[in-house]
């Protein structure tokens, strides 16, 4: 029984439901729009990880491991745009700038679909998937970390300046993001690059998104 795959399916579906619940409510504001897209991107990332985990076929597994980097690109951009709009608009970002912020993620799709510059191949070492990474993983890691740090800076800056209910919201969001991102980045970027591998390592990052899902749900349910 592939417990990682099943766990990821459950987490991905829960995140999908969360995203849909955002869509079905009457809402206003850019922050909700970007957060909903962020939830869908995370859900896509988790579900592509799930398909990779549930498949033994080399070609399918490799394809879906590459696909996880498509959603990764969108996670970075939607997270950054969300932080510019939460809890209130920090800066008006023009449609052209939004497009430019999405451009790396869009180019990333073509690179992934047309080349194998992310994952040159995969092999099973001691029951664990070991990727043979191409050069793009380093560029993607840098791009992801820059966008993520930029977004984190925005949240910390907002937290320092916020008061009352906004401060409460930012505190829980910050804790959830820091925990899940630290664990996720370690499992999905740092460990693979330094060739540390153990069974299920590839899917740990996606599984840690449950922490973020938990904090998001807590914010939605708990009303101070």
């Amino acid at each position, binding site marked *: 029984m592939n417990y990682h795959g099943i766990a990821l399916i459950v987490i991905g579906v829960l995140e999908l439901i969360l995203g849909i619940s*955002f869509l079905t*409510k*009457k*809402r*206003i*504001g850019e*922050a*909700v729009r970007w*957060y909903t897209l962020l939830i869908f991107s995370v859900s896509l990332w988790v579900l592509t990880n799930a398909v990779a985990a549930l498949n033994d076929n080399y070609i399918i597994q490799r394809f879906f491991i590459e696909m996880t980097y498509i959603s990764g690109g969108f996670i970075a951009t939607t997270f950054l745009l969300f932080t510019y709009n*939460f*809890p*209130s*608009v*920090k*800066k*008006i970002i023009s449609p052209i700038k939004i497009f430019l912020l999405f451009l790396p993620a869009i180019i990333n799709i073509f690179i992934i679909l047309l080349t194998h510059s992310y994952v040159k191949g995969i092999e099973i070492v001691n029951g664990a998937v070991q990727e043979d990474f191409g050069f793009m993983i380093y560029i993607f890691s840098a791009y992801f970390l820059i966008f993520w740090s930029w977004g984190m800076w925005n949240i910390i800056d907002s937290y320092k*300046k*916020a*008061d*009352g*209910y*906004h*401060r*409460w*919201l930012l505190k829980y969001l910050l804790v959830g993001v820091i925990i899940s991102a630290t664990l996720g980045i370690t499992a999905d970027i740092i460990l693979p690059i330094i060739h540390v591998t153990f069974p299920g390592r590839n899917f740990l990052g996606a599984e840690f998104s449950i922490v973020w899902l938990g904090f998001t749900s807590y*914010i*939605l349910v708990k*009303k*101070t």
Partner: protein
Amino acid sequence: MSEEKTDKNAVTVKGDIKPWLAKMPEINIMAEIEPIFILGEKDNEPDLSHWTKLGKIIADRIDEFDGFVVTHHVHSLLAAACALSFMLLNVSKPVVFTGSQIPYMLAKKKTDKKILKKYKGLGIKANLINALQIAIQGPAEVSIMFGNKLVRANQAHITKSLSLNLFDAPLKAVLATIDFGIKISEHAHTGDKDALKFSANFDDNVSVVDFNSEQNADYLKWVLEKKPNGIIIQTHNPESALALLDNLIPVSYDMPILIHTDIPYSHSASASYIFIDNMTFEATVMKLKWALGQTNNRKKIAVLMKENIASELLEGEE
């Protein structure tokens, strides 16, 4: 914005508004704001004359703006918001009241410093930002924004003084909640309305007698001697209040007497008194003042008090 030094944030004269707003750059990104000064923070509590002035400004300029935010002392904020809800019937734009529980001198007390530290204040800035967002796209009615809730003004009540959500309301009067964005409730007024009816006629000569703590007959006698144009008796036991009133109120007394209770169905019908069990106390007081401003006919006042004029009747009790 420093709530630790709240005296430095106080808006006491018109000239203080711009520097105060400049401390919150997000506000100026969100909307074009035209500040209007009516009363400073260190002045006396606002009263009906200030609220009438406020209502007139809103009525006169209703087409110029997408919405209106009113920052107000918290002590009388509920009364002010109730007054505006009756003054501006069929208002087509959001009128959002907000404020902070922290008066300019409060931060000097030690106990309050703990709360200030926990939330970095009780949300002057957060309340104002949320109120502004509501004023831009929120429900077209008079409402109160505090903490993470937007509530209908004339169905709201005060909760805890040092909580983020200072005001609450029954579920159907919670017009929006805040989390990652602002979620407007299906109970909020968003549809088309008739033309705005502005009526600033209020009769302030209304007395309130509290029968909850004790059957205060002497105080009622004293009130009757003052000849108010309307009396509101607050009680948890309308039947026993009724028995006492029958002995105290002269037969010739022809001013409206309301018996307000928070316990529904706890009274029998009476031709002499108007029982109110489906409105908050604050809304009852303001509605009686408003009704007295519209007519001095006791029967018409009784009809107005039972009518749902500005969505003030609590749901399920209509």
